[in-house]
């Protein structure tokens, strides 16, 4: 896939439900596996990457220190790290950037990353929210996933 249009065409040909926004070069993919009826967003960046993003619906608290600590622990442990915070929008997210190789996005790499982003959002989202809301210590963020 060498352009945003080719990405959209590939999703259609693969039968993957999606909603494309050509103006912003992004496409939303709904997934029942995600919390809060969420979506994964693919963003075709000008700088030779494609972002695969799930943004959590809950807000980042004013004091984000515990959440930042938890995110650092997660990213340190994860095979494919990508948990982050958008300070301006006060949202946490999972984002994995795929570099386009020789200008092209490879479908098989996108498949690997989509699977991982959905799994991270599904498995880690509730625990990150518990940290953000003061219900789970940051140091315990890894306990249930055994990392």
């Amino acid at each position: 896939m060498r352009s945003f249009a080719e990405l959209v065409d590939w999703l259609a040909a693969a039968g993957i439900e999606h909603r494309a926004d050509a103006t912003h070069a992004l496409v939303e993919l709904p997934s029942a596996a995600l919390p809060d009826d969420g979506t994964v967003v693919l963003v075709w960046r000008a700088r030779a990457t494609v972002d695969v993003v799930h943004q959590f619906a809950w807000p980042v608290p004013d004091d984000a220190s515990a959440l930042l600590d938890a995110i650092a622990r997660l990213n340190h442990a994860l095979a494919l790290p990508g948990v982050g915070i958008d300070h301006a929008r006060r949202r946490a997210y999972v984002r994995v950037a795929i570099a386009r190789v020789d200008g092209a996005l490879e479908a098989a790499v996108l498949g690997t990353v989509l699977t991982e982003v959905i799994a991270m959002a599904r498995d880690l989202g509730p625990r990150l929210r518990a940290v953000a809301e003061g219900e789970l210590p940051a140091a315990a963020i890894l306990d249930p996933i055994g990392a």
Partner: protein
Amino acid sequence: MRAPTGTLGCFADLVAAVAAQGLPHRAVAPQVEVQVHRPPVVGAITLIWSAQVPTVQLLHVIAHPPANRPALLDAIARINHALPRPGFGLAPDGDALYFRLVLARRRGTDDLAAAAIGPALTAVIDAVAAFAPVLAEVARGARPADQAVRARPAQATGAAFDWIVE
């Protein structure tokens, strides 16, 4: 630097791709260390072929002063958010500041385009060159965490394939 071609299907392929570029390196499976000299990035970038998960990791450990951990984590989050290819991290014990870029391998075939390696090395070097000094300032208390990205040099997100290996 020549653009490598072909597919990397195993650790030996990764080592061969590094060797084919003429890069100084030392390989001990599943890791190959590439020596880099582009101040302030001096030392090893370790490439790790994971057998457990379909990834190749590129890791560069950054020396840093004893840190105010909360400020450093805040700065890291802001920088990672701004980078096209994020990867700064801090070990839970606070001793290791690093940049770790992870490349996903292809689903099904479990391999990777050889051409992905060079730009990934460049991304590591560019990010560390741009932001390691900023993070050092944050760690020393010389810069507020919320000023970490504003301090970014203009070339921080540049894609120039211009790193130097000695």
